[in-house]
């Protein structure tokens, strides 16, 4: 019997979209130099008008952050700072449905993911870091580590609210104030977060949100009033920022791209490994820096694993992100869709075999069907370049040593997956994989207490955990007191 699921849309009514949003500076929403529109990538409808922060606006924001730092935040005992963060965490929980729906319509990701993953993790990050605010002396950085000052943070469009939480929570917990620039295509949950800061009575200027495009980000990064920069985004832009900081001397952490290998051995728990492969590359439409975009499968089980993978891909549901049963949502923008298409064409041109499960695509909006390339070799562009879409490249290996060699054969080093029932093999692989995060018999698991970050060109610095605090503390004694 055919069991079709009827539409199960989450209601949009919980979100009240304003026609127009200002910048959040010094505790209030203020106008800026110009405006731009943000659209829903699933339908291409305009959602709202958002302000573009020009250099003067960035200047004002940094000044507000500096003032808040000097007059209020850096003098406040950690215990009290922590309570603000606890309030914010609670408010995120209280407004979680609203945040999830807003994230889904602005970003294109399925409501199930924003509801069950993004928003709860964002709240958890604030809870975790709230508890550090008055315990920094126990973090291993000396008895009373000082903050750095005003931090400039630029975040990407793939997990807008969660990336905001990863940046703002530790920064505030450590006593810094923040100017944050959300991605151009996904400003809305950051602006709702600003409202949450108001509801929490956060002192004005502690958090400032400057919406805009790449130019806004550049202005922020270059601003002399910023003591430290945190950037998550493309490796290309990360390198530009690194060059700039090499000259300016600003503290910097980068979380950039990846081309993670998901290694499946012949003794892997097959059904769970297939889930891990699917989750690794199709979760969030593959817009994940740590996506398992290369499947390295042991040659002896290639046929079985691929057959199971194709069968499983046949149950993926692509469509309206607000439908609670959608697994694969919209590609975030026309620009990203074009990039994916270009790389996929290169894959075909270079001789790899392309397969997608049959999947009707909606007429409007930006969509790409989950796709697998087999007969891929390391030399293919689709094996080397980050696609940042729902496209998996499959390669094979014969021995553990070969798996390690191939997995490490990339300028990136953000994450890796290992699938085997053998504990010693897991640990052997983990010790040799040049990646900042190794997932064994699981994938794409995140926790505020678990440090995340890359080797090599995937960036430097860690976010989350005790290690993640270092980025926001003066551990060298070189910052001004």
């Amino acid at each position, binding site marked *: 019997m055919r069991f079709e699921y009827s539409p199960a849309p989450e209601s949009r009514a919980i979100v009240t979209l304003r026609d127009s949003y200002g910048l959040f500076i010094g505790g209030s929403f203020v106008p800026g130099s110009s405006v731009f529109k943000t659209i829903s990538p699933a339908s291409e409808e305009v959602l709202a008008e958002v302000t573009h922060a020009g250099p003067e606006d960035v200047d004002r924001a940094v000044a507000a952050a500096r003032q808040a730092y000097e007059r209020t935040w850096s003098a406040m005992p950690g*215990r009290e700072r*922590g309570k603000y963060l*606890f309030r914010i965490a609670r408010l995120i929980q209280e407004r979680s449905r609203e945040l999830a729906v807003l994230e889904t319509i602005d970003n294109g990701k399925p409501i199930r993911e924003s509801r069950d993953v993004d928003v709860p993790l964002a709240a958890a990050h604030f*809870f*975790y870091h709230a*508890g550090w605010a008055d315990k920094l002396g126990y973090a291993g950085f000396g008895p009373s580590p000082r903050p750095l000052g005003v931090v400039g943070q630029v975040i990407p469009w793939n997990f807008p609210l969660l990336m905001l939480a990863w940046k703002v929570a530790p920064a505030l917990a450590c006593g810094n104030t923040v100017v944050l620039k959300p991605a151009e295509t996904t400003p809305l949950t950051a602006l709702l977060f600003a409202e949450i800061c108001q509801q929490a009575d956060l002192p004005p200027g502690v958090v400032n949100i400057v919406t805009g495009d790449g130019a806004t980000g550049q202005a922020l990064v270059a601003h002399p009033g910023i003591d430290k920069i945190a950037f998550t985004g493309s490796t290309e832009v990360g390198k530009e920022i690194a060059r700039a900081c090499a000259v300016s001397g600003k503290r910097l952490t980068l979380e950039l791209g990846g081309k993670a290998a998901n290694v499946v051995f012949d003794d892997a728990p097959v059904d769970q490994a297939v889930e891990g492969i699917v989750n690794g590359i199709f979760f969030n439409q593959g817009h994940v820096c740590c996506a398992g975009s290369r499947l390295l499968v042991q040659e002896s089980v290639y046929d079985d694993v691929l057959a199971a993978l194709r069968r499983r891909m046949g149950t993926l549901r692509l469509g309206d992100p607000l439908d609670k049963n959608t697994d694969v949502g919209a590609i975030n923008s026309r620009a990203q869709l074009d990039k994916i298409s270009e790389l996929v064409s290169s894959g075909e041109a270079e001789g790899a075999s392309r397969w997608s499960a049959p999947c009707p695509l909606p007429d409007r909006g930006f969509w790409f069907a989950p796709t697998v390339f087999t007969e891929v070799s390391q030399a293919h562009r689709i094996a080397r370049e980050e696609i940042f879409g729902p496209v998996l490249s499959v390669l094979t290996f014969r021995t553990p040593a070969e798996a390690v060699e191939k997995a490490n054969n990339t300028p990136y080093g953000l994450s890796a997956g290992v699938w085997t029932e053998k504990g*010693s093999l897991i*640990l052997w692989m983990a010790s040799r994989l040049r990646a900042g995060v190794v997932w064994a018999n699981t994938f794409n698991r995140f926790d505020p*207490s678990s440090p995340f970050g890359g080797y090599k060109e995937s960036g430097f610095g860690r976010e989350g955990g005790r290690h993640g605090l270092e980025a926001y503390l003066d551990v060298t004694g070189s910052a001004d007191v």
Partner: protein
Amino acid sequence: MSEAAEVSVAAQAGRIAVRKTYKLYIGGAFPRSESGRSFEVTGAGGGFLANAALASRKDARDAVVAARKAFPGWSGATAYNRGQVLYRVAEVLEGRRAQFADEVRLAVGGSHKSAFAEVDAAVDRWVWYAGWSDKLAQVRGGANPVAGPYFNFSLPEPTGVVAVLAPQDSPLLGLVSVLAPAIVSGNTVVVVASEKYPLPAVTLAEVLATSDVPGGVVNLLTGRVAEIAPWLASHMDVNAIDLAGALDAPGALADDLAVAAAENLKRVVRLPVSDWTAEPGLDRMIATLETKTVWHPLGV
């Protein structure tokens, strides 16, 4: 008496308060002592405050059973979950700030200001401990670089059921400061409240009962420390005992308890504190933690 006269008497008395009954807190419920006994609690001014339940050894026994039953669930919960529960306790406590300030002032005397200060310190102390739940493993655990192809890591784990003798002279801040560190890591406890000032502890138990704390995680006994503590100290299913409430007791009570505790090698906590408002440090949490070290080879 005529109706008019009755009305006049009532009018002179003002509104009659509905007084609270102070019972034990065991397994998430509020039973009276199985012995049926109670004892008089007087306030700072010497006047009658309430009759509190006078716990017996059987109540202590039942409390240990409840604590043991609750241990797998509480220690098996994620650290995040325990932190959330403890933070919720702080929220509810804060909501009852005025009530607790009253209880403290009636018990120990002093001004409204000092009572509120104690309550605020107790809430903040609770929040401080709540935030430790998901950090203890990082501060007290880690990988060990052994010489050989082995992955080796050490982890803190809760020891089990902890008997806690709450400090005699600090019925809220002191109480919170010995209770929270025991449960944040996953231990379950049997608390013996201050003998002189037991009432704030019972009201705290009401807060725990309405704050998502699973029944049995915290059990509260009110009564004579010298009567009940020996039964807890000698109990073979209690894993640790915090002697804070016996340190200043007459005679050698604390020593006797420690000797009794040695029968099953309980972890004995003797950490005198002169100023409960000072930041506690890790000692009390560490005192009820075990350390587990695991080895696993690395190889193909």
